[in-house]
């Protein structure tokens, strides 16, 4: 099997063994959920309910505030008990709607439409839009926007992202092996919406059973193909995946549609399928709760808005004191200040580190060893960006690649001086945005 990949990148330990073999199990309805109003890139959704309202599972609780925004739904039935700022999985405080469960789990009607494949593109897109779906790989870009490329940007290829290159996480892997048919339905629907002729599913070589299964299922479909990929981080990054699968390079500052490609995560594909067939809003997702100290690492199908603390409790808690709780994967995820954050549509994992693994090493002076330069998947000079930001030379930072950085963290991973390169680069991005505003 010839494996495709992209230039640069690193090979962190994949650590997927903790939860890889745990089948998706259903998280019991938690006592309360917090439906965040900002689960996506774009305008914050505006709430349509008020405290005291009773809501059904699947009922709209917030409307999109513009095209690049999202509708939000109640993920359990119960009463709206608070609309306030709650801890967001990115570690900040953000507005959300708290729903306290009535224990009955009453749902809005979700009728099966077995003839869903015959709907036209506009009707399909309307159902996706109404379901409040955003990219479930982490970035959270509203899916209906992604599926509406301008006329002058024809799309010929849809790539499903089943790479899951973040260490520890196994939620996409479980979907691939347990819900392959639904994923393929989702792929077909996306292809229909953007009228693409070709559909790829990119999967890394550390998931041979998923590759084999999908290959078997797509064997007779000429326009679909599984792309087995060499194990390499950050293969799940959009530009890297597109290059690995098609050899096309997304122009700097551009979107995948510039090269005729739309990329969707496999979990998003499942959500699209459910939205179209059952008109089911995105109110639950699979999340991996994992790490060496988790007593029973699991892949849970949990209501959006479930508190991380409830997820962990369902997994039997931890066997040692928690040193760090990461929302998402350890390469790009966020370290949480507390476990009462509520998961959002982009929450693919909760990774728990013990105190030893949480220890951060001391930052030294840059040796100029160029390890970061050698592995940067965007071919930038990370150490030079960082030092330019440090010395407030934004022009130099831009020249060294500030605006092209995808913040994958590979540079900081290999840095022998433990320089927090991503943090410096992020600071630079913020300062640059400020400078642009003040211009």
């Amino acid at each position, binding site marked *: 099997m010839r494996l495709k990949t992209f230039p640069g990148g690193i090979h962190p330990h994949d650590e997927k063994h903790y939860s890889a073999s745990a089948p998706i199990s259903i998280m019991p309805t938690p006592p309360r959920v917090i439906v965040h109003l900002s689960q996506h890139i774009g305008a914050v959704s505006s709430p349509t309910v008020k405290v005291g309202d009773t809501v059904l599972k699947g009922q709209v609780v917030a409307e999109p505030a513009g095209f690049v925004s999202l509708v939000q739904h109640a993920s359990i039935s119960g009463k709206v008990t608070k609309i306030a700022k709650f801890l967001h999985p990115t570690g900040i405080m953000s507005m959300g709607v708290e729903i306290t469960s009535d224990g009955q789990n009453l749902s809005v009607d979700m009728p099966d439409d077995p003839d869903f494949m015959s709907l036209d593109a506009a009707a399909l897109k309307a159902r996706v839009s109404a379901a409040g779906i955003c990219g479930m790989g982490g970035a959270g870009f509203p899916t209906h926007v992604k599926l509406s490329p301008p006329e002058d940007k024809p799309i010929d290829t849809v790539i499903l992202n089943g790479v899951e290159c973040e260490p520890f996480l196994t939620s996409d892997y479980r979907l691939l092996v347990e819900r392959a048919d639904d994923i393929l339905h989702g792929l077909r629907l996306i292809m229909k919406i953007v009228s693409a002729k070709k559909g790829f599913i990119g999967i890394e070589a550390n998931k041979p059973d998923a590759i084999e299964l999908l290959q078997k299922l797509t064997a007779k479909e000429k326009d679909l193909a599984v792309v087995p990929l060499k194990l390499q981080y950050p293969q799940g990054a959009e530009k890297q995946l597109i290059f690995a699968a098609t050899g096309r390079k997304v122009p700097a500052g551009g979107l995948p549609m510039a090269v005729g490609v739309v990329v969707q995560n496999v979990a998003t594909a499942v959500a699209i399928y459910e939205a179209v067939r059952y008109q089911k809003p995105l109110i639950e997702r699979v999340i991996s709760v994992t790490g060496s100290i988790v007593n029973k690492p699991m892949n849970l199908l949990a209501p959006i808005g479930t508190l991380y603390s409830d997820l962990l409790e369902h997994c039997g808690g*931890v066997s040692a*004191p928690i040193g760090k709780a990461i929302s998402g994967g350890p*390469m790009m995820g966020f370290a949480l200040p507390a476990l009462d954050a509520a998961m959002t549509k982009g929450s693919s994992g909760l990774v728990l580190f013990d105190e030893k693994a*949480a220890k951060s090493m001391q930052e030294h002076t840059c040796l*100029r060893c160029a390890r970061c330069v*050698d592995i940067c998947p965007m071919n930038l000079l990370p150490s030079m960006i960082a030092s330019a930001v440090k010395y407030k030379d934004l022009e130099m930072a831009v020249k060294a690649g500030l605006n*092209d950085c995808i913040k994958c963290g590979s540079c*900081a991973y290999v840095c022998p001086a433990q320089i927090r390169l991503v943090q410096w680069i*992020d600071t630079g991005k913020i300062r640059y945005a400020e400078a642009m505003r003040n211009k």
Partner: protein
Amino acid sequence: MNIKDKLTVSAAPHVHDKTTVKNVMWNVVLALVPALIFATYYWGIRALLLSLTGAVTAVVCEALIQKLRKVPITVHDGSAFLTGLLLAFNIHAGAPIWLPVIGAAFAITVGKQVFGGLGNNPVNPALLGRVFLMASWPTQMTAGWVAVKDSAISGLNDLTRIATDLQSLSPKAYELVTSATPLKVAQTLRDSSFVADINAQAGGLNLSGRIFSSLTEMETLKSLFWGNIGGCIGEVSAFALLLGAAYLLYKNIIEWRIPLFYIGTVFVFSFLFGGIPGSEISMMLPFFHIFSGGLMLGAFFMATDYTTTPLTKKGRIIFGIGCGLLTIIIRLVGGYPEGVSYSILFMNVMTPLIDMLTRPKAFGRVKK
């Protein structure tokens, strides 16, 4: 959540490959151990003593200066030890013991700490120390070479290959091949008046040509490869250095571009221009050039110094080629028999410029 849990909040990534400055530096020291073992085997305990003196002096100096500067003492990171060891490796085994002391002290103070320590020095401190010694004590640095046990300094052991009785045939030629290093022999043979002299002494025989071709004979090359010649402590055995270099390449501590282009350039240009009048260029001449002098030590252990070499991949290629060209120019037309130190130092100074001119194009960015 347990109340006792103190969650660490920090920026991603939350995992690291565990390489540290310390393990990089000590791994380079480890890679130099074969060369040190060979040197000790060849010259006895004195070579070991000189090497350790250099290393210890560097460590002590760094600690003292850091104490004076009131900054954390970081000598355990191995970088000062490495600088001192490399400095001593550039001194020959017959040198007085104070030579590495002064050299290492200069390397650490003027070469490194003056600029703020590790990561901030513009040129390779060990090489700066070496050229300082060369300029200040040229006699001690270049006279009194001690040959490796049972070998000639020049690597030319069997003089009967040149002439049945070279000593009486041409005393001047005899003196050269018994007292000079291989590169010095090669350099002297490019001196036309010297060549005329020895050829006249030998009664019109092409003695210079014979000596020159014996430099590229398999016997001589073997001596150069294993290190049965005269030279600086750490540079003589190409084999030992390649062993260490292979380890560093395998461990991903040094990168292949600089050594490959450095040695490659010397290889190609020594073949093109390395001959002397009146003698054919042997196919083996490039091997003579790459295995002699400080090239292996320089290319793998000094030209790969992180701080003083380019960040960019293209820049490293330019750096390697630049070092190679300068080395060959110094060897073939310059006043010194060897040019590794000066070449690397010169290219060190060019590094910021090279970096500036070779900034990579980001993935997906097109040339403007």
